């Protein structure tokens, strides 16, 4: 292994991409394609969710199959807040992150005592428990989910406007990516990457391995919660399906397509998967066949993911 280090051109590329994103809503509006603003927002949100999983899976090596539980929790926190008249984004987003992060802390405190396939199974079990909890919660809409009336306000501005909401999602993603990039290079990031490679050695160097994994797992859960709160605002619904293991699987596929352990892996994966879905679903209901073929191709020809093709890791 090596510590993650992006290729030198990735930062300027990311900044260029960010600048392009800033004018995207105007361009789309100019061409009368406002519909795609919502679609682009969706990509940004899933990019954030996948990146949060990539922190847990790619950087710390914890193969969680229950990540969607934290994603969905964030969505419900946003919906419940709205239903109770709390619609200040500066309050709701941190709250969604906090609740989802705490939930992850709880799940992690138990799950992280296991390893390998047992960890996968126990995170799956927790995810499904959370899913059924929300399915059976009548007050929150049961399996119909909890609708949101309108969107949050950010510093006095309503996010009901699609372009405004797009920018809120863009800012959330950009800040998260910057945070994750800094984290990877900081002491904490080096520790979790080294634990991924050899946890016994880290323990023998005096590191309390369990604590580091737990904090990382909770951080990932918190970021997923933010993504969930954003998604609920975009679609106007917090549905129990967001917590289901299928959703965890989708996030995993995004990370694997994009690049496990690559800073931009989650972004690239979300972009590819959602675009593919959008295009292929227009042709056929069986678009999953195309997805399967793509996944097969990635695993065979670019096993480290698409992001890995654009810059190798070196120590």
């Amino acid at each position, binding site marked *: 292994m090596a510590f993650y280090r992006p290729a030198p051109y990735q930062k300027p590329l990311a900044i260029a991409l960010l600048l392009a994103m800033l004018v995207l809503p105007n361009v789309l509006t100019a061409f009368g394609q406002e519909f795609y603003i919502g679609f682009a927002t969706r990509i940004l949100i899933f990019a954030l969710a996948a990146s949060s999983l990539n922190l847990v899976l790619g950087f710390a090596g914890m193969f969680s199959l229950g990540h969607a539980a934290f994603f969905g929790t964030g969505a419900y926190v946003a919906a419940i807040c709205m239903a109770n008249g709390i619609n200040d984004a500066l309050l709701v987003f941190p709250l969604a992150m906090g609740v989802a992060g705490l939930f992850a802390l709880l799940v992690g405190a138990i799950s992280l005592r296991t390893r390998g396939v047992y960890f996968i199974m126990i995170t799956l079990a927790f995810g499904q428990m959370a899913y059924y909890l929300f399915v059976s919660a009548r007050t929150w809409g049961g399996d119909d989910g909890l609708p949101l009336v309108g969107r949050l306000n950010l510093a006095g501005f309503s996010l009901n406007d699609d372009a405004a909401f797009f920018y809120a999602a863009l800012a959330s993603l950009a800040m998260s990516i910057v945070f994750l990039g800094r984290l990877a290079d*900081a002491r904490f990031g080096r520790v979790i990457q080294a634990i991924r490679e050899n946890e016994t050695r880290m323990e023998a160097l005096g590191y309390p391995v369990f604590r580091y994994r737990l904090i990382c797992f909770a951080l990932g859960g918190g970021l997923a919660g933010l993504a969930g709160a954003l998604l609920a605002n975009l679609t106007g619904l917090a549905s129990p399906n967001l917590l289901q293991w299928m959703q965890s699987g989708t996030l995993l596929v995004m990370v694997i397509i994009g690049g496990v352990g690559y800073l931009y892996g989650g972004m690239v994966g979300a972009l590819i998967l959602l675009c593919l879905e959008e295009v292929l679903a227009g042709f056929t209901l069986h678009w999953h066949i195309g997805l399967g073929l793509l996944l097969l191709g990635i695993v065979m020809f670019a096993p480290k993911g698409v992001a890995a093709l654009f810059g190798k890791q070196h120590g």
Partner: protein
Amino acid sequence: MAEALLEVRNLSRRFAAVDALKQVNFCVEAGEVHALIGPNGAGKTTFIHHVSGALKPDSGSVHFAGTDVTALSMHQRVAAGMARSYQITNVFLGLSVLDNVALAVQGRQDSGSSFRFWKPVIAEQGLFDEAFVYLEQLGLAERSVSLAGNLAHGEQRALELAMALATKPKMLLLDEPMAGAGPEESARMVELIEHLARHVTILLVEHDMTAVFRLADRVSVLVNGSLICTGTPDAVRADPAVRRAYLGDTA
């Protein structure tokens, strides 16, 4: 008698039907090089795991630097001043030599709380300066930017020692440092350990008898889970029970 740095009292451990360790009483005095020898399957590795904290005993206790550490986990024992090297080279092969040691320095500096999420490690010159000092001590300074995976076997063992030293231990637990080394590498390793022994107490588990008798102040012999003898190298060499059980009549 000098002060006991490590004291193991009545340590017993059973695996299914096998008594791996039977009522072992063992003591390492501060400042000495204490070698633990014994034939294959005698329980040396099991014993080491109990000292380092990787395994917990069925009964008995482990005391280190005046405190009972029996209930402490491995990383807590490291923080208390007990460092170990591994029988099989156990370094981060994909990292540079310097990064390997820097990880060890970082682990000690924070006494286990590297919860810094923002400041890049690259900017922490002090971390790498200190790591470099350990590399110099072990003759690896010129290799600092190489990948650990590109080092020769003997150099990897030295790196392993550098990492253990970087935790600033009171006691070094060396698990077969000569394992897999050629005669030249072994000789170099003996020199290194001799050098280290001036600064730190060493518990050495080793098969290479030449090295053991050259390095050790005292030797303990473990056979079938029991400690049959502890004494100076000469006394142990002369002990009839040891000769019978371990060295063989020709030794």
